[in-house]
């Protein structure tokens, strides 16, 4: 419609420039640094080249790093399982009408807008030994000692519970949006054929919801692989290595030990794993879209 495309490129250029400088340049820079041995606190603080695979060879045998990746993946899958289950039930319940529904829904949205770091603080205040009501309640009524500062399993599951508290509303609201957009015809014909509610759910609702479910799984997996802030606030990655997810591990190696070269290689591997998972899910999404056309 305009005579030339110059105006278009002019309008697009600030966005492209900012994304290049803040997104692509750091990527290539970290790729570059990852090939060097570099620790500014070492005897020789300069960058030394010791072969392309130097840092990667160390990382691939670094049990702590590999364990942190495994921990992140385990955490993502566990939280996804609970959030999907809970979110689906809640979304289905929101389809019916009941008293105070919009109030309940509004409160349910609240955790979504709270900053992760604040969620960490809220849970710290709520669960820390000697201050929070939760350890007291558990001790008095169930005789259960909650002290995630010492108990590794409790620390991991505390983070899981916090993540469920924070992100289940997202799953609920997304699935609700998907459910309310479903066509009504299949339901009516199924009812005429005499299907019960459970059959309708398994054979009609679930298959029609698959595209929305994939989007939810995609976004939740990406976000929980990124988790740092809440964990940093609540447990700081401890006790021991119990809640040291990949992001936290990189933080500790880079800003406490100043392993710049190794840290870069870690960042690249972390990015690599995210990209692979992301791309696998994305191609599932695309190929499903193709099948439906």
């Amino acid at each position, binding site marked *: 419609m305009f005579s030339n495309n110059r105006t278009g490129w002019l309008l697009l250029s600030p966005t492209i420039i900012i994304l290049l400088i803040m997104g692509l340049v750091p990527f290539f820079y970290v790729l570059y640094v990852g090939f060097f041995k570099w620790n500014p606190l070492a005897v020789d603080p300069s960058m030394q080249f010791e072969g392309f*695979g130097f840092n*990667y060879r160390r990382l*691939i045998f670094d049990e702590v790093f590999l364990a942190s990746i495994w921990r992140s993946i385990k955490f993502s899958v566990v939280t996804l399982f609970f959030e999907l289950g809970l979110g689906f039930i809640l979304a289905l319940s929101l389809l019916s009408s009941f008293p105070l529904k919009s109030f309940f829904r509004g409160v349910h949205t609240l955790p979504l807008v709270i900053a992760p770091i604040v969620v960490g603080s809220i849970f710290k205040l709520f669960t820390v030994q000697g201050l929070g009501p939760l350890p007291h309640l558990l001790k008095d009524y169930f005789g259960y000692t909650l002290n995630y500062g010492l108990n590794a399993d409790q620390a991991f599951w505390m983070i899981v519970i916090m993540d469920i508290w924070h992100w289940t509303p997202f799953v609920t609201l997304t699935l609700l949006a998907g459910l309310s957009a479903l066509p009504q015809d299949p339901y009516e014909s199924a009812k005429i054929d005499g299907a019960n509610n459970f059959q309708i759910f398994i054979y009609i609702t679930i298959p029609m919801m698959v595209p929305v479910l994939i989007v939810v799984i995609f976004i939740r997996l990406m976000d929980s692989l990124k988790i740092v802030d809440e964990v940093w606030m609540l447990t700081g990655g401890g006790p021991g290595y119990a809640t040291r997810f990949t992001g936290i591990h990189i933080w500790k190696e880079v800003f406490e030990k100043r392993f710049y070269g190794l840290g870069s290689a870690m960042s690249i591997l972390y990015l*690599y794993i995210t990209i*692979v998972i992301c*791309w696998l899910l994305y*191609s599932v999404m*695309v*190929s499903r879209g*193709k099948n439906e056309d």
Partner: protein
Amino acid sequence: MKKRGFIPINTNWFDRLFIGVISYVALQLFWMRFLESLISINFAIGIGIAWIIYVIWKG
């Protein structure tokens, strides 16, 4: 532009390069972890580059 090879989705050349590089990196890492004590990494590099070219060409 997009074509169908042995990869079960339609891809353009950039997608195939991407797939090639991703699998190249995976090959290098696994080779370093499990095979490098027996066979030099240079074999992995050779196989990997051949694989990238094959994917871009036939994928």
